[in-house]
């Protein structure tokens, strides 16, 4: 082409770099200021504003991904011996199998020649859920012996709830390995995948190792959490009266202990609960009723041994998977007994 010859004669004079893409097409690059760059950048920004960000892609569709190596690294990172087939089955969700079948049908692939030989994780999921619930209830009962069963159920359901389990699963890289139909992986699917992984661990290494895994990753989510954040009690005073009558302690009498700023916009009232003329809980509030309710909650926390200044749970005992009973809690119980009061 004529233009090609003209350009190639200008190479040495104008410092243009040419390279042949094929015999008739020549691409030129110059090192001067690119006058088209500003227009191009503004156009692409406008396009981004109109269309929004590109949809997120799963990690498996980005470069540098080896599923088998990732699964192996997953099990060694957590220092657990998973059986590889069980673990890979645990990551396969029924929605993925469904979508794969539909995709193969849509592509016209014969279902006999290319059969999808992948197991579901539903069974592992139910197994894992059962085991998790029983382990967590046992752990709660061992750590907080005087917590009633309603409280134990509340804590266990908080720990197995979608937000907590999905938070743990996302920070353990389970989302990368999950095979599901949609991306980003919906909470439900991630929740069931995590429980299926627990089930797989239980089958591969036994109940003890699975228990230690749950203690190290799910129970640690209780650190820094208050009891009544997880267990919503509507009438703490009624519950307190029940608890004290069960222990044969005199019923609580609320008395106003301190007040400040009674006529102002921010009043402060301290209400103390007295059992048999001895103070056992005191709490502040904006109104007298709010302070009384808060004092009942403080008393309940003391009774159940879930105060903020209790001895922290022992997460390092490898041999006893349920952990040791806290001894400070025993002391507090003695304080609550009729003899002490």
């Amino acid at each position, binding site marked *: 082409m004529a233009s090609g010859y003209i350009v190639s004669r200008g190479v040495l004079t104008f410092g243009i770099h040419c390279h042949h893409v094929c015999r008739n097409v020549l691409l030129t690059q110059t090192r001067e200021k690119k006058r088209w760059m500003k227009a191009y950048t503004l156009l692409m920004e406008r396009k981004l504003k109109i269309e929004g960000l590109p949809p997120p892609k799963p990690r498996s569709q980005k*470069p*540098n991904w*080896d599923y088998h*190596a*990732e699964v*192996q*690294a*997953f099990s*060694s*990172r*957590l*220092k657990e011996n998973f059986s590889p087939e069980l673990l890979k089955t645990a990551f396969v969700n029924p929605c993925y199998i469904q979508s794969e079948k539909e995709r193969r049908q849509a592509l016209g692939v014969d279902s006999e020649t290319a059969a999808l030989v992948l197991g579901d994780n539903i069974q592992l999921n139910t197994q894992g859920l059962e085991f998790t619930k029983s382990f967590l209830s046992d752990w709660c009962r061992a750590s907080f012996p005087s917590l009633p069963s309603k409280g134990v159920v509340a804590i266990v359901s908080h720990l197995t709830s979608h937000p907590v389990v999905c*938070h*743990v699963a*996302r*920070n*353990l*890289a389970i989302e*990368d390995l999950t095979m599901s139909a949609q991306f980003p992986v919906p909470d439900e699917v991630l929740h069931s995948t995590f429980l299926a992984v627990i089930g797989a661990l239980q089958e591969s290494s036994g109940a003890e190792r699975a228990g230690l895994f749950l*203690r*190290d*990753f799910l*129970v*640690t*989510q209780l*650190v*820094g959490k208050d009891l009544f954040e997880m267990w919503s009690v509507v009438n703490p005073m009624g519950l307190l009266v029940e608890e004290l009558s069960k222990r044969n302690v005199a019923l609580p009498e609320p008395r*106003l*202990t*301190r*007040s*400040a700023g009674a006529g102002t916009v921010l009043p402060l009232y*301290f209400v103390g609960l007295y059992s048999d003329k001895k103070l056992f809980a005191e709490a*502040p509030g904006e109104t007298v009723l709010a302070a009384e309710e808060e004092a009942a909650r403080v008393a309940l926390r003391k009774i159940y041994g879930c105060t*903020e*200044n*209790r001895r*922290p749970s022992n*997460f390092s005992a490898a041999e006893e998977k349920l952990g040791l009973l806290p001894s400070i809690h025993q002391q507090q119980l003695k304080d609550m007994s009729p003899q002490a009061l």
Partner: protein
Amino acid sequence: MTSRGTPSRFLQSVLQNGVGRYVCQMKRISLIFSKNGQSSLGAREFIEEGVVDFAQKNPGTVVYVSPQSCRIPKIVAEYLNGNVKEEAITSKTSQQIAELITKLTNQSGLDIIRIRKPIHTDSPSIQGQWHPFTNRPLSIGPIGPQKQQAN
């Protein structure tokens, strides 16, 4: 920029790492280098001698080695909390690259920004947080200075 103008965070760990077992927070490391560029010389030497030992010592991290034609060799480290950190290793020696990789392995994936306090506790007070009513006799009504007891 001042500390108010730049982002900051509190001291924290990902998923209470270390309270239970310790999990190495780096899940993936990719070495992108060129087969023929001078800037990738250190990277190529590291791959010849050090990368296999590193991969054996850290079985929980997947090591990807990808030769591409690139001007700047890079290390891309991905962490369990989703953060991705890219470091250029142009014209670094194999020793320097090894040190950089150990540094990246020991980091959690949290942002390297100003940490507001070098401490964190979940039980800030054992005997109860002091408030102006602590250790004062019970009283309802206006609060004034306590009468000194006669010694």
